[in-house]
């Protein structure tokens, strides 16, 4: 299946004169691991925020299964089946791990406050079902036994996992991960990479990934887009991206040989003038 699940069409987002996302077009096929990379301030997270409804793009459309979703409130976007994680982990820190996941289940549950007070039969059923589901997810993301820890007391790597667990509770069609390996060491990063791959392979979730660790990106992405100054400058698979001169320039800086020569000369002449 290679149906397009998310289609980003000509999206622009402007912050007081600064164009953070500029005419970006991206098609994400279903069940792909799709990476968006680019240097600092290239507009990756802004694009994420546009997709998940945090920002309303000034121009363009974002289609989910062909329906426009830009400008919808974030809870509706979540309800439709897009879950996300955050660059700097944002958990409900004073709640336990299980409760975090239970809140993730929110869009799939129906019981109302009245059911809760009266303890109707459907409420009891739903509640025990959701607790089971939450514990199952907890196990799945590898936090079994940590369920009753407050989220803020979990070690850093587990907080990342819990955040993914919370996102999974929504039963998402699309999972947007914002730098899931930031701040992890090599071992943890390898584990996380494997885990992301498993999500796609086992659960069939489409994954959109922002990542700066190129080892991760190159290792698992089916397709990669590169943003720079808010514009998409390249798209392709890992090998294509690594060979693309515009990408190398975006990361390592422009100029290359010519400028290096210039500065070399300048330095030499400066050194000479000081020696004499």
């Amino acid at each position, binding site marked *: 299946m290679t149906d397009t699940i998310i289609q980003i069409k000509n999206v622009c987002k402007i912050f007081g004169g600064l164009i953070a996302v500029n005419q970006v077009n991206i098609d994400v096929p279903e069940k792909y691991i799709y990476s968006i990379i680019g240097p600092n301030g290239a507009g990756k997270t802004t694009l994420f925020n546009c997709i998940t409804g945090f920002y309303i793009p000034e121009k363009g459309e974002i289609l989910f299964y062909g329906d426009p979703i830009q400008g919808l409130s974030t809870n509706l976007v979540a309800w439709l089946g897009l879950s996300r994680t955050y660059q700097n982990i944002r958990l409900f820190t004073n709640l336990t791990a299980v409760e975090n996941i239970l809140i993730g289940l929110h869009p799939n549950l129906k019981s109302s406050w009245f059911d809760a007070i009266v303890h109707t039969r459907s409420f009891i059923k739903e509640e025990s079902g959701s607790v089971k589901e939450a514990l199952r997810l907890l196990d799945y993301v590898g936090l079994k036994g940590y369920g009753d820890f407050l989220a803020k007391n979990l070690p850093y790597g587990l907080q990342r996992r819990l955040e993914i667990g919370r996102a999974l509770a929504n039963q998402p069609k699309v999972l947007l991960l914002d730098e899931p390996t930031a701040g992890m060491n090599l071992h943890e990063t390898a584990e996380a990479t494997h885990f992301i791959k498993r999500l796609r392979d086992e659960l069939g979730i489409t994954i959109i990934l922002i990542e700066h660790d190129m080892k991760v990106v190159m290792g698992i992405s089916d397709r990669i887009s590169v943003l720079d100054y808010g514009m998409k400058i390249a798209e392709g698979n890992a090998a294509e991206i690594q060979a693309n001169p515009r990408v190398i320039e975006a990361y390592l*800086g422009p*100029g290359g040989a010519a*400028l290096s020569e210039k500065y070399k000369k300048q330095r030499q002449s400066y050194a000479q003038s000081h020696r004499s």
Partner: protein
Amino acid sequence: MLKVTDLNVHYGAIHALQGVSFNLEEGEIVTLIGANGAGKSTLLNTISGLLRADQGEVEYLGENITNFEPQKIVPKGIVQVPEGRKIFAAMTVMENLEMGAFTVTDKKLISDKVEEMFAKFPILGKRSKQLGGTLSGGEQQMLAIARGLMASPRLLLLDEPSMGLSPVLVEQIFDIIQNINHTGTSVILVEQNAQMALCIADRAYVLETGKIVLEGEAQEVLQNPMVIEAYLAVTE
């Protein structure tokens, strides 16, 4: 001049610097390069007192200045030009420069310095009454550097001065950095734009996830395949 030993800094839950040591001689340009989130800015912020070190020592001109507050560090001659320029948008160019000279009490000296900056950056002189927020990106970067120079620093910490600028402007900024260095100010340069940074630097340190993975003469580092790997993971 500056000696950092075994610096450990936590940034929220992240162990952002894990035992970083480096040093800088007077008159040098030292560049710190590395990918996003490698800990470069954290290192600068720790030196200039914005972040607290959990462990380790920062020694400047033989004095231990670890965890001093910024207002005590600036008068010693260490000035940071922050990432993203951080111009005071609602203040005029002139006022921005005056803020840069906050620790200077001699009014004559301040006006001399302002003149010097206007000579160095003529465009700022032309816009001295304009609000900082109305300047273009390149002008803002120049203002940020000029503001940093107002305190007559002996050591200038530059955080991503080329970020978000077009190649022509980047070249200008790098020329300026070199000039500053030639007038006797030591510079620590944090850059994404590794190629250029390495061209003008004397020595370089490459950071990866909070650790220094490579150090040496800039020209050597430039040739080292690890640099490209640190950015693009091109290992094959």
